[in-house]
């Protein structure tokens, strides 16, 4: 017994090192698997608060470009509104509106990241605004990511620029679908895999979300086709997609909640 205690006392530095290294490796491995970064994430009051106050200063410098983005979106929405065939009527309540499936919440990005291989963003909305895991996040131009961890006031978002994420996407013109991944090389380009060989592809075609998961509704724009190649087995296309979003300059985002999520999940789990 004495010997064992002596051994521990003699090697206490080394043992402490091993223990701390083990701990950090556990955190690392957790962060590489989806939805497990429970302890080490920036959605807590300390890091969130610091990023929030830093962002309050930073956001001042790109007010102009962000305003232009928002005006562009307003312009588009106005053109939709006034050019629609059925004019909006006063005093008429559209009853189909009540059963809409998706609820939108506006939010602001207070930490952007695009240089690492597993990019995680931070939003200034959290549990208090009834945001929770697996909600989709989009900008006015296109898709952005999926909510991962939430605290009371903040939420982390796994960006599309993250090797741990796969998003179901399809061609806008036809219904051929595949999964969207990122090869870490260029922050404005992602890869769409497993599009079947017979799909008609053309450079410049639009890629949208497929609506096959409960996270994103169908038809949210993602990007345009840059190039496409058959994979080694020659059964599927791998497509290089240019994102509509400039991932290095985003601030105002929308969080999408699927209000039927519980029902769909129950149904799927019962099987």
């Amino acid at each position: 017994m004495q010997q064992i205690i002596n051994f521990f006392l003699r090697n206490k530095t080394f043992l402490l090192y091993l223990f701390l290294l083990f701990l950090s490796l556990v955190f690392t491995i957790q962060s590489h698997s989806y939805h497990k970064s429970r302890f080490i994430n920036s959605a807590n009051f300390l890091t969130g608060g610091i990023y929030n106050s830093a962002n309050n200063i930073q956001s001042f410098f790109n007010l102009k470009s962000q305003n232009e983005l928002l005006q562009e979106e307003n312009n588009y929405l106005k053109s939709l509104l006034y050019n629609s065939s059925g004019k909006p009527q006063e005093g008429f309540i559209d009853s189909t509106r009540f059963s809409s499936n998706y609820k939108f919440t506006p939010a602001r990005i207070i930490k952007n990241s695009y240089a690492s291989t597993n990019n995680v963003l931070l939003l200034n909305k959290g549990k208090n605004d009834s945001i929770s895991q697996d909600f989709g996040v989009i900008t006015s131009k296109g898709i952005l990511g999926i909510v991962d961890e939430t605290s009371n006031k903040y939420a982390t978002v796994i960006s599309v620029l993250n090797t741990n994420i796969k998003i179901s996407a399809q061609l806008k013109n036809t219904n051929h679908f595949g999964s969207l991944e990122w090869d870490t090389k260029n922050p404005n380009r992602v890869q769409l895999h497993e599009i079947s060989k017979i799909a008609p592809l053309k450079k410049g075609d639009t890629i949208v979300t497929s609506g096959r998961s409960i996270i994103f509704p169908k038809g949210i724009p993602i990007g345009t086709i840059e190039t496409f190649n058959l994979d080694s087995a020659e059964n599927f296309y791998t497509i290089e997609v240019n994102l509509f979003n400039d991932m290095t300059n985003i601030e105002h985002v929308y969080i999408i909640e699927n209000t039927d999520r519980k029902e769909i999940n129950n149904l799927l789990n019962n099987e």
Partner: protein
Amino acid sequence: MNNTIISHTIQFIALVLLQVAVLNHINFLGDINPYLYVIFICLFPINNNRIAFIFLSFLLGLSIDLFSDSGGVHAAASVTIAFIRPVILKFCFGSIYEHQTIKFKQVDFGAKVIYFIIIIFIHHLILFSLEIFNLSNILLVLKKTLFSGIFTLLLCVITTVIFSRKK
């Protein structure tokens, strides 16, 4: 004694804030960021309390991880260089270190730069291998280590020069 504890606490907090609020967002040429907080581990005074030193390094790395949502990669890299620092010290400074009389303000500039280079490159290699976590991307790991390492080294040397002139 109390004075050094306070000054190290301030250094710790200032380095973490500087790292997460400014240096993590430089993204020079796309994805090159300096990791200046390593300088805290490099220049921590040498005494016999290695346990506290290793634990402090772990805490430093973990706080950076907390801010940058990177799991435990900074913690692993920091705690490793803190553990192997005596070996590197012995290699770079030789007899001065053996007699426990070393003061970072007095040592030769060339030896200090070599000491920085060794520590920074070991730290960055561990950091990026764990962050990318993929053996097929080993070239990317080496590329990032080299470029970020040069950037960090430059900042470390500039910082030491600035802060040694003042006194």
